[in-house]
């Protein structure tokens, strides 16, 4: 097997994909614009060959590099970055080298939020009412229909950048002035809890691993109000209908041999699962590691095995623990020091690390990954870590 990994050094935990592939016996052919000398030695050791291009945005260089790999190793079997930012690049290269996996035309449906919404609706899943609004008349007409508050987001966009919660006429005017000059979709605001349903499918679209995350609050609110966040995997507390909605979403978007990361609201009023968005990639941050800790598995390895045709999780998996991401932000006035946390909660803390700058707004500056068998144990740890002076 010849597997091309795009940018295997970012995020740092993605090195385990390369390591897993090497273990599974594949040629691990890496492409990136970072200096080889800066690589984590574990990564360097896993790579069969690395081709450094001057800029990963320069498609022609990538094309030539893949040509080089074909020349030296034969046809390419997979091209993967596992990274939202390079999804289209992956897809384009796959088309140009006839490689299995998601192609450009399949990304069309998930590129913008209106397209995504239509796929959900066609699959009979619930969505927040919403549509494109191009001017203040259309925006006001929509609000007349669903009432305040509403959420406005760029139709094409990653993360929560330039996303607005509009609760009043003033918010509305701010949105109209501050917005980007692009298509905006306006949606009714769903009062409810945010959950993700994540996992890995095989070539036939069967879910081979899954877990869900409960988020203490939405990413938009966390970023806009600069709050600290926690989220944790689920065990007994999985909301009714979430797994079914996740399974139907996998079918609707035809997710094959891929990690997926779907987001849902569980509506406070009636408990209905409302679909928010799909991501055709593994969940970000330390979530993959949380899943590994929660189920005592190695998903990086399992993906590599899946791709190389080796048996995946032959003994199944179990949601043995709760695993949680508990973020702290540097400018908050926390009661407990790092030493106190480690002293008091050390037996629950399975990992802890600083977070790369681009993600700090959403995830925090420093993260503790805690795991516990019971939810009340976990909640105590979370409360202790995030406790602040008024």
């Amino acid at each position, binding site marked *: 097997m010849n597997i091309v990994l795009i940018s295997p050094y970012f995020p740092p935990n993605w090195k385990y994909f390369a390591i897993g592939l090497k273990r599974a016996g594949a040629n691990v052919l890496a492409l990136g614009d970072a200096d080889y000398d800066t690589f984590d030695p574990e990564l360097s050791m896993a790579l069969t060959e690395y081709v450094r291009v001057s800029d990963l945005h320069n498609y*022609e260089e990538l*094309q*030539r*590099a*893949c*040509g*080089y*790999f*074909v*020349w*030296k190793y*034969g*046809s390419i079997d997979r091209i993967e970055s596992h990274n939202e930012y390079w999804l289209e690049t992956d897809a384009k290269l796959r*088309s*140009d*080298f*006839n490689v299995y996996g998601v192609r450009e035309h399949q990304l069309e449906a998930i590129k913008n939020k209106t397209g995504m919404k239509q796929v959900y609706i066609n699959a009979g899943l619930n969505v927040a009412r919403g549509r494109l609004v191009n001017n203040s008349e259309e925006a006001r007409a929509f609000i007349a229909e669903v009432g305040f508050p509403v959420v406005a987001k760029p139709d094409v966009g990653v993360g929560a950048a330039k996303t607005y919660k509009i609760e009043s006429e003033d918010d509305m005017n701010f949105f109209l002035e501050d917005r980007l000059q692009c298509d905006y979709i306006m949606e009714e605001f769903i009062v409810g809890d945010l959950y993700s349903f994540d996992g890995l499918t095989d070539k036939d679209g069967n879910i081979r691993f899954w877990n869900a995350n409960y988020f203490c609050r939405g990413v938009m609110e966390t970023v806009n109000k600069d709050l600290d966040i926690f989220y944790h995997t689920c065990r007994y507390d999985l909301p009714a209908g979430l797994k079914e909605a996740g399974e139907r979403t996998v079918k609707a978007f035809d997710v094959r041999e891929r990690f997926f990361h779907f987001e849902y609201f569980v509506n406070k009023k009636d408990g209905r699962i409302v679909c928010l968005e799909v991501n055709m990639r593994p969940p970000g941050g330390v979530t993959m590691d949380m899943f590994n800790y929660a189920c005592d598995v190695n998903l990086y390895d399992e993906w590599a095995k899946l791709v190389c045709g080796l048996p995946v999780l032959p003994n199944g998996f179990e949601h043995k623990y709760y695993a949680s991401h508990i973020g702290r932000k540097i400018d908050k006035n926390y009661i407990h020091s790092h030493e106190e946390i480690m002293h008091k909660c050390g037996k629950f803390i399975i990992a802890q690390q600083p977070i790369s700058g681009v993600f700090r707004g959403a995830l925090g500056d420093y993260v503790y990954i805690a795991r516990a068998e019971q939810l009340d144990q976990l909640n105590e740890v979370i409360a202790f870590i995030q406790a602040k002076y008024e």
Partner: protein
Amino acid sequence: MNFVFISPHFPATCKNICKALKNRGINVLGIADTPYAMLEPDLKAVLTDYYEVSDLHNTDELARACGFFTYKYGKIDRVESNNEYWLMTDAAIREMFNVFGKKPDELRYCIQKSLMKAKFIEAGITVARGRVLDNYQDAKNFVAEVGFPIVGKPDRGVGASGTYKLESDAELQAFFADKADDTEYIFEEFISGQIVTYDGIVDRNGEPVLAMSSVYGEGVMESVNSDNHIYFFTDRHIDPVIEEYGRRILKTFDLKERFFHFEFFRTHNDGKILALEVNCRAPGGFTMDMWNYACDTDVYGIYADLVAYGKTDISCERKYYSCHIGRKSNRNYQHSHGQIMNRFGHMVTNHMELPAVLARAMGNYVYLIRATEKNELMDAVNYILWLD
């Protein structure tokens, strides 16, 4: 622009295409299983690069060769062999490297005669009745429908090889007794008629830029099987029905930026036109030279212009009838080479002896002649082929 030429050394006319491409600044990248040192000097001179593989049938080697070209020159823009035998190989590489042109799934219709027939019918073009048959009983039923003689040919075959005319039940039985199991055969009613072609070069939009029509004195199958001499000529005037059918076929088969060569029957009884087959390549033999003589043009340049610029300024008016006359060495001809050259030398554009492998289909000694008037041309044909 990067043009991968599969087997650029064979047939020999390919080097003319390579040269025309090279003259337009295109990188001509050859792949074949012949050592570079064995290539003709004039071909070497026009190849930008050459990758020798041990066997052109080996897909992995081809992938690596094209990988190398992609690495060294960037995205491959075209993959062509202009050779019936490698058409599927071209298509497979196009698919591997996402290159403009027909992919294997689309090309099947231009190769498999049974699929071709279905497309002809879809285009509203009359065809000889026929179907794929794999046993004597089915064949007998088919004969009950259309009567003897019938013609059997490999469903995926090149040229007239492996083609049989079966005239009796005994022959039919013998055929199925001998037939190799792995070859699918299609059977058709025998059409007594003349072969007329519609061929030329089509541009990227599917518009024929060069359109020619050749008229055959005798079917190719008959020449091969009876070892008779042969002649055919390009017409100055294309039969309107042929032109209409030809254009419909270009559309239905969705042919773009390539040479094409369609064959039809014009029946002897009632002059009806039946579609025979589609070829997504230039006709073989000296036909391209004949086109050049017929129009005082440069067909290789036209093709290269279309690849490089999407259009051409080279004119190609059909000024002459251009004829291929092939004499066979097993016949006694009335007139000697000297007499021919003496009397019709002003019309002869080329003449040469052919190697034995080509002689059966094209003649041992070939004269290419041209004339502005048909009767002038036929006088020469009759003179050259006059038997003792």
